[in-house]
């Protein structure tokens, strides 16, 4: 259903380039532009829970994953606290 409008101004140069690309894709200009934008939007949304780490971050993570485990008393207490409530929801 196409029931809303997006108005935009583009430079002639951009317009020509997009029009040429749409022709290559054998799509009309609107279909081409909407599908390109949706593709990008989907990717951004999907990527919001993909974290790419810097070298420093990655090393910190690797160290923790391969290093010894240090049990945390507060964490232990917290998990005990929530264990008692199995009948939630």
């Amino acid at each position, binding site marked *: 259903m196409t029931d809303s409008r997006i108005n935009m101004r583009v430079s002639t140069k951009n317009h020509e380039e997009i029009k040429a690309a749409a022709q290559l894709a054998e799509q009309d200009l609107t279909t081409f532009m909407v599908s390109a934008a949706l593709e990008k939007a989907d990717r951004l949304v999907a990527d919001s*829970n*993909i*974290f*790419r*780490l*810097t*070298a*420093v*971050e*990655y090393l*910190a*993570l*690797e160290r*923790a*994953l391969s290093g010894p*485990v*240090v*049990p*945390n008393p*507060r*964490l*232990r207490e*917290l*998990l005990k*606290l*929530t*264990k008692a*409530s199995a009948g*939630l*929801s």
Partner: protein
Amino acid sequence: MDDWLGLYAGQNEDKFRTRTFFAVDRDSLQLHGYFTTVFGEVKPGAELDGIAVSNYVKPAFLIARLAVHQKSQGRGIGKLMLGEALRKALGASESAGLEMVIVDAIDNNAIAFYGRFGFIRFDSESNRMFMTMKQLKASL
């Protein structure tokens, strides 16, 4: 959770992309806080291209948002919700591989809060923190 506090799952979130749980007073039905969970993954960024690091994508359980209503702060509700969220991570790791839990700390108080339970900052600048499943299971 606590006797007086119930945890209710949201119904209709983002076509199952995320889940949100609400901490609600069992008697008054007042909303005290909520948290949102979603699976995510961690991988080395482009700056590590060509460097010998394990290129595995590491699966993570994200506590994407955890918030206590302003009026309900100081009553340990955040702590209870964190405990519930970690229980959910433990439950999920029974069904599929998970290497860590990740949280986004909103400010320095939140960083200190998560730090007390053993969450580690990805780096000194980062508000994003993690805890390995190994560590979590060791504290059961």
